[in-house]
């Protein structure tokens, strides 16, 4: 089972290694991970997709909470959040196949970001299922290479990660 966690961290050198290191050291499986800055330069936000049952999820959250640089953790359940990733897929699309592929991309609202005589590169945004479906459909045309970001996500409505922030700088390390 996959769970999406959003983690607010202090934007400091090594913080990503600390978070990723905790996952590998304790044997938790990361399906994807995305990291970037926020509106406040002191913080970065990591979205991580973990695989495991509820017991594992519980341990992941508790172990993350012990990291000094982790400021807040929010679970993003599928029904109460929006989650998006980006993939770029380069396929062999010369000659007669080209029109067919372009049609397909349109259905998925994928953008063409590069095109040459022999190739076409699509950019698609969506949740994991949508991207998976698009990639599966392109498979028969011959994927030359592809790249995919981890999911990024936010809770729907007024719910937000700052509700989970620690009350005082570094204070909750006591638990």
């Amino acid at each position: 089972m996959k769970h999406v966690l959003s983690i607010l961290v202090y934007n400091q050198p090594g913080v990503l290694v600390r978070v990723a290191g905790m996952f590998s050291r304790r044997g938790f499986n990361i399906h994807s991970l995305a990291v970037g800055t926020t509106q406040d330069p002191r913080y970065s936000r990591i979205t991580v997709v973990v695989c495991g049952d509820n017991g594992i999820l519980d341990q992941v959250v508790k172990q993350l909470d012990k990291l000094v640089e982790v400021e807040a953790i929010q679970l993003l359940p599928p029904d109460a959040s929006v989650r998006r990733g980006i993939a770029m897929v380069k396929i062999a699309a010369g000659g007669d196949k080209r029109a067919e592929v372009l049609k397909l991309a349109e259905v998925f609202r994928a953008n063409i970001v590069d095109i040459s005589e022999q190739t076409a590169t699509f950019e698609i945004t969506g949740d994991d299922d949508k991207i998976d479906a698009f990639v599966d459909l392109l498979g028969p045309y011959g994927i030359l290479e592809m790249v995919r970001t981890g999911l990024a996500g936010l809770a729907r409505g007024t719910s937000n990660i700052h509700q989970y922030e620690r009350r005082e700088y570094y204070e909750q390390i006591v638990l």
Partner: protein
Amino acid sequence: MQLTGAEAVVKCLVEEGVDTVFGYPGGQIMPLYDALYDAPLRHILTVHEQGAVHAADGYARASGRVGVCIATSGPGATNLVTGLAAAYLDSVPLVAITGQVPTGMLGRDSFQEVDITGITMSVTKHNFLVRDAARIPEVMRLAFRIARSGRPGPVLVDLPRDVQQGKMTFYPEEPAPVRRETDETRTEDAVRRAAAAITAARRPVMVLGGGVIRGQASREAALLAEKLGLPVVSTLMGLGALPSTHPQWLGLTGMHGHVAANRTVHEADLVIAVGSRFSDRVTGDPKRYPAGKTFIHLDIDRSEVGKNVASHIALIGELKPLLARLAAQTAPGDIASWNAAVATWREENKPEYTAESLNAPWIMREISRRAAGQPVVFATDVGQHQMWAAQHLSVDTPGTWLTSGGLGCMGFGLPAALGAQVAAPGHRAVLVAGDGGFKMTGMELYTLAAYNLPVIAVVLDNRCLGMVRQWQQLFYRERYSSSLVPREMDFAAFAEVCGVPGWRVATPAEFTAAFSAAWESGGPAVIAADIATKDIVTPMIAPGAALNEFVHVK
């Protein structure tokens, strides 16, 4: 006030109440050593950086304060790693300060450069690489706060040489009080449910772990136990939480636990685990251990709940107030017949001691007899002797039993005893070690002599790596691969060379005489006691077996 970074480090140490540091100088930490030259701090120069970190660890375990050690960059820093891991796994508050190559040289594989924050990330509670002298006070204060708050642990601060030399403005500050918190709303409900479960239980037992020692909650644990009248056992790390003479205390639980203690845990219907993380050495088979039991888990670290054993009721926070609240709200259950059964098991399994030849259990009794009523701190190394000590030494006060439980780190004993002796000059540190581990860090005898630290080191010399040999006898068809030492070593002579009086004894009478002489001498001493190579530690539960499945020894 205008200071160098190194001077600011010293100011911060003094601010935090540090009076002693353990360390070893080298190139990139020289600015700090220059500042230490006329600092109001005692610096103990060990023989090896591993000695310094274990000594700081022993100091912290014995005193309950934060231990501090200092090493240079590169090899100095890597020599701390084992000691940091030992402290991390046993939740010991340490601050380790390492030198580092100047910031402009970082990342270029400079001379004596290692990425020590990267290396120690998984064996410290947190670590810092300071790139700006002005940040030193903030980082040092945070380091101490992290080390001692909540579940304690080691913190490493890496200081490039130019940062130690950089000028900065220092503003003095009182150390921040450690904030203690418990989640009130969740706790109240959990306490109620725990109280109901305890009163309803017919076969309850209390398991005391190292958290009781670290959380200084022994008194509250004893009061709860006495109010409920139930049997109590200790894990290896929880020895001393209750005095060994306490009528409800059954002894050690786990792989080499006492029969009555393990049987009681095995047959219990309710386990109150206090500051224990359910290590595999405590539970045996993690599948069968919880069968038929309700678990109430008290711990300061939320992540321990459900990590190894699924608990039914969790009480998270400081153990002292939690135990007190639980005691105030809980009525004892009807457990008379359970206590009668437990008493029978205890009576049937009383250890017997023989003085026919020199043997480890007898030596432990003899040390306990000689030390009874005296202020003493016991330290051990790791292996057979450690288990004999855990089974047979009388540990009566919290913080007077120092052993590397989680890491099981051979070589820990002597430097830890050294640090404990520094921390508690009014106590006598008594080390129990084996010949294998004693060789690993035995050169610290020189440090004992240099600072006249009156540690008595009892080396149980069985001329083999006993625990390895024991496993080979039991599980590897008596193929003694590399466990029998190829050449005997004269530990008494070795001690003398280091400047410490040494005895070599082979009979109980000789041991008694040597121990008395060592005790009376008031200085450091080594007593090498020849015991049989074939002696093995019993009782024993094989790894992965249940707590009622004892290994049968031919």
